[in-house]
């Protein structure tokens, strides 16, 4: 169990809604990551994003944890809800709101409450660009 994987797990467990994407909440660098964020925005959910590109190990450790090979990955209350296709489909059918409500109660409704979190800032972890 790596330190990085611990941090990723902590993020998944502590953030009510977190999207692991290519980019940040202000700018997604990939169409699929953007689709996932637009789906969350569309229902008025608050969310955190975590940028996977700064260190390739983030994606490796995340996929090892989640058993999901692609980015983006959206977690609600610690559970993988899906990638872009699923989150978009759930949003279109009303099931995304239902899932958020079921897992988080009314607390999920936080339109515009968006921020980017990192697993790379802590002590003991060196960022290796392109590593």
């Amino acid at each position, binding site marked *: 169990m790596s330190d990085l994987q611990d941090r990723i797990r902590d993020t998944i467990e502590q953030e009510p809604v977190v999207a692991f994407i290519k980019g940040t909440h202000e700018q997604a660098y990939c169409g*699929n990551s953007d689709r996932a964020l637009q789906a969350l925005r569309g229902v008025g959910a608050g969310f955190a994003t975590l940028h996977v590109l700064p260190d390739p190990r983030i994606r490796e450790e995340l996929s090892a944890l989640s*058993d*999901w*090979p*692609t980015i983006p990955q959206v977690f609600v209350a610690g559970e*993988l*809800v*899906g*990638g*872009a*296709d*699923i989150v978009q*489909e*759930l949003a279109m059918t009303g099931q995304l709101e239902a899932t958020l409500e079921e897992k988080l109660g009314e607390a999920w409704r936080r339109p515009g409450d968006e921020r980017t979190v990192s697993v790379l800032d802590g002590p003991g972890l060196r960022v290796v660009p392109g590593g």
Partner: protein
Amino acid sequence: MSERLAGLLHAAFPDASEVDVVDRTGGGDHFHVTVVDASFQGLSLVAQHRLVYDALTEPLGDGTIHELRITTRGEA
């Protein structure tokens, strides 16, 4: 390349009522696959997509697939 993916999906889902692979850009690396299979009934979308990912582990791992969109349905 679409044929290779379709072959893998047919092998993984021999009873599927629909297997469709679209090369979204014509470049042979951005695909949209659709699988309709009665065995998906009762499974979450995450579980359904995981089965599709499992079938495509090889082209996902060797870099053939740069981007993958997935649509799954259990038959009514």
